[in-house]
């Protein structure tokens, strides 16, 4: 009597009784948002220099002037190499309509996060169509 296993060797059926290799995701980077994150994307990722909103220069100058340059790639504080998105840290923050977190993504693959602990400053916000 034929069994299903008689067919599997010649015609393997992906996903049925076969373990598919999990998609590899790098979770050890600031780019990663864990599944239990409360954060909400406020503004989509765009090139810094093409952003509809003006991004303050300190967003990359802080990396250059206050960071450890022995560990940071020079491209990471070159606005030509950076993309940016904006986040709300929580649903309550989203209700205010004011982002309080930004991420800068460098062409080298590294991510730089900026968390707005203070206030009274400009918080860039944009839309794309």
């Amino acid at each position, binding site marked *: 009597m034929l069994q299903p296993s008689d067919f599997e060797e010649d015609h393997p059926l992906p996903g049925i009784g076969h373990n598919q290799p999990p998609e590899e995701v790098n979770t050890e980077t600031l780019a990663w948002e864990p599944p239990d994150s409360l954060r909400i994307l406020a503004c989509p990722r765009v090139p810094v220099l093409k952003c509809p909103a003006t991004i303050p220069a300190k967003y990359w100058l802080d990396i250059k002037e206050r960071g450890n340059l022995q560990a940071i790639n020079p491209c990471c504080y070159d606005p030509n190499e950076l993309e940016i998105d904006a986040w709300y840290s929580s649903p309550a923050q989203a209700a205010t309509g004011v982002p309080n977190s930004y991420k800068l993504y460098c062409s080298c693959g590294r991510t730089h996060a900026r968390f707005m602990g203070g*206030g009274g400053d400009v918080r860039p916000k944009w839309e794309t169509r």
Partner: protein
Amino acid sequence: MASYVKYNIVVENIGNKVYDFFGTTDTFKVCIHTDAPVVATDAVLADLTQIGGSNGYTTGGEDVQNDATRTTGTLTFTGSDIVWTASGGNLGGSTTGRYFSMYDDTPTSPADPLWSYWDYGATFTVATGETMTFDTGANIFTFT
């Protein structure tokens, strides 16, 4: 600043003259920690579980370069942005941060009294060469 939360002990410490906001008398620092703050009972830095003191993170956090001014009946507390750079591995080693807390590093009794915390909204890992900036804005808080 929807994410700014003051620890309950602050009002008692103000009454006991624990903090000095003006000039360089007291040094306020911001640290990164893993445990969720308990505003009702957390009172000093030792009540928090910081990320590991390695790969660019110094236990105790960084000086926020604080100062304060008064205009009529409002005190404005200011500081300078802090940038942590991961070097030689993930910031804090195998630990992952989520919260920032500010405290006064100068008093000895109580030692390192807390002031406020902020929730990033998720655990984060700062990989080698990446940075986490705590932006102090035009002011960290105002007090009336």
